[in-house]
């Protein structure tokens, strides 16, 4: 089993080197977030007023900010916020969207009309706008950010799941499942879900990048994870811009972190979309 997985991973790398690079970026970021206390040497929250805006050195790899906090530590800890928000919001948003989409397509008729129109309306708003509206109503905080982003990403998942379900629900195997006495619930979860899972996972992985961007944007606007928790978006916000001319690394490194992680998710998601076909699995 392990050997087969290894072979599959190798083939993926050969066929989609950029996808593998994307996966590597995400993987390293996840490791860094997990082991943040081990791989950093300064507390990201403690200001050192003797070392304000010092450049890169052996002690401060990426320099320090205007309060003398170690930028490297802040970026590593910031990865935690970005990843938690990205995975939790997309996980929640796609799960809700996918389940509603499958039910909507399976039931059809008025129910389907209702969810489709609702999706149209929600997609008409930019995700960031929905998220901002949500946060304005419910206030800032990590889990509110997760909900806000998750809800704004549910509609695309709903659409994809609905479309995929429509294309498989008229297959004879669904009728055959009815014919062996399976209930509608069983057919939805046992027969339809595995068939629509691949496109849903692809959508989710592509959206992860966007979720990080939105989280950064929300933090930049002061609607994200509240300070002093280090967040990549917030590192770019506020008075930092004043210091950008004298200490450019304060905007360069967090910006680069956002760009690289988003790029990683997108590369991986795109490659997954190209590769994933259940009929090729196990060959």
């Amino acid at each position, binding site marked *: 089993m392990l050997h087969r997985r290894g072979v599959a991973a190798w083939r993926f790398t050969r066929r989609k080197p950029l996808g593998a690079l994307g996966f590597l970026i995400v993987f390293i970021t996840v490791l860094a977030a997990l082991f943040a206390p081990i791989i950093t040497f300064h507390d990201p929250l403690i200001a050192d007023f003797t070392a304000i805006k010092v450049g890169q050195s052996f002690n401060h790899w990426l320099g320090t900010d205007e309060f003398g906090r170690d930028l490297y530590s802040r970026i590593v800890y910031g990865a935690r916020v970005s990843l938690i928000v990205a995975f939790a919001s997309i996980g929640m948003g796609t799960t809700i969207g996918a389940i509603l989409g499958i039910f909507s397509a399976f039931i059809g008729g008025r129910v389907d009309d209702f969810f489709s129109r609702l999706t149209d309306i929600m997609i008409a708003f930019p995700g960031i706008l929905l998220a901002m509206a949500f946060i304005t109503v419910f206030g800032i905080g990590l889990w509110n950010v997760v909900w806000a982003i998750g809800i704004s990403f549910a509609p695309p998942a709903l659409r994809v799941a609905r479309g995929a379900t429509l294309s498989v629900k008229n*297959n004879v195997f669904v009728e055959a499942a009815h014919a062996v006495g399976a209930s509608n619930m069983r057919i939805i979860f046992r027969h339809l879900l595995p068939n629509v899972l691949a496109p849903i996972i692809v959508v989710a992985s592509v959206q992860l990048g966007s979720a990080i961007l939105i989280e950064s944007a929300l933090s930049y606007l002061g609607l994200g994870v509240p300070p002093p928790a280090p967040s990549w978006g917030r590192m770019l916000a506020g008075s930092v811009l004043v210091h950008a001319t004298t200490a450019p690394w304060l905007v360069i490194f967090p910006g680069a972190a956002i760009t690289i992680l988003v790029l990683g998710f997108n590369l991986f998601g795109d490659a997954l979309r190209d590769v994933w076909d259940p009929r090729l699995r196990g060959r």
Partner: protein
Amino acid sequence: MTTLLEVNDLRTQFMTDDALVKAVDGVSFTLEEGKTLALVGESGCGKSVSALSVMRLIPWPPGRIVSGSILFDGIDLLSLKEHEMGRIRGKEIGMVFQEPMTSLNPVLTIGRQLTEALELHLDMSRYDADRRAADLLRQVGIPDAESRLTQYPHQFSGGMRQRVMIAMAISCNPKLVIADEPTTALDVTIQAQVLELMKQLTQRLGVSLIIITHNLGVVARYADDVNVMYAGKIIERGSAAQVYANPSHPYTLGLLKSVPRLDQPKTESLDPIQGQPPDLGNLPPGCAFEARCRYAVERCATDTPILESVGGGHEAACWQIAEVAAAR
């Protein structure tokens, strides 16, 4: 001999935007235990809809069973609630579909699909269900059953998939198996194997079988009784031997004449039925076959013929039975 299935005056209709399509229009038939019944007819004559009605698998909307009764083993299937019907499907009545390439779920292993009915109806443990599944695969002639269980449908050929479908249909020891054109999508050589297998299994397990087909060769070899359908009605019925020896409806006669025979002189050309089957949403009054029938008389255009005996349980619905018999 006891009656397993008794269908009385079944009417199944589809509401489309333009018309009310009477796909099955007053069909009655009975099936004795252990017998094989063939429903014969061309595409769109209502034979599949009849079978799906028995399973109560008519999709609503647009389809609906509007009247009639279906007595299966003493139970009126049309009066059952949906979850009660769920206990009949797969357990008491198995079904084999026409398209072996699409009737299996592409992303589930063969084993999981085979064990589905076992888990649903017989409450078997995973281990027992797997062993039973392997045993079923061996019964339908698939070698190396244990390792085949972990494979996906795309790793099976068409004939092998149809064997898997048969194994699924018989997995809970049903009393009745309905096979909807089980061989239409298969190679000729495989067709014979699959039919032979079905015959053998149904005989050994004492299962009754309804074969839906348009292939008269299949009927002759494998069916005890034949119901010929046209435009939603049964227009001729009898034992396979009776219908072959004395086709009494012009449509049956036409069907038999449109199949080439090996003992026929090469110079003789085939004699196909002219014209197209009628639009089921807009049936003419009288006999539905009237427009294509060479024996038609005035009366056929106005009065609908009913099934009348032509001797020994053999019945046909035609006003011109005597003329057809004379021309045979």
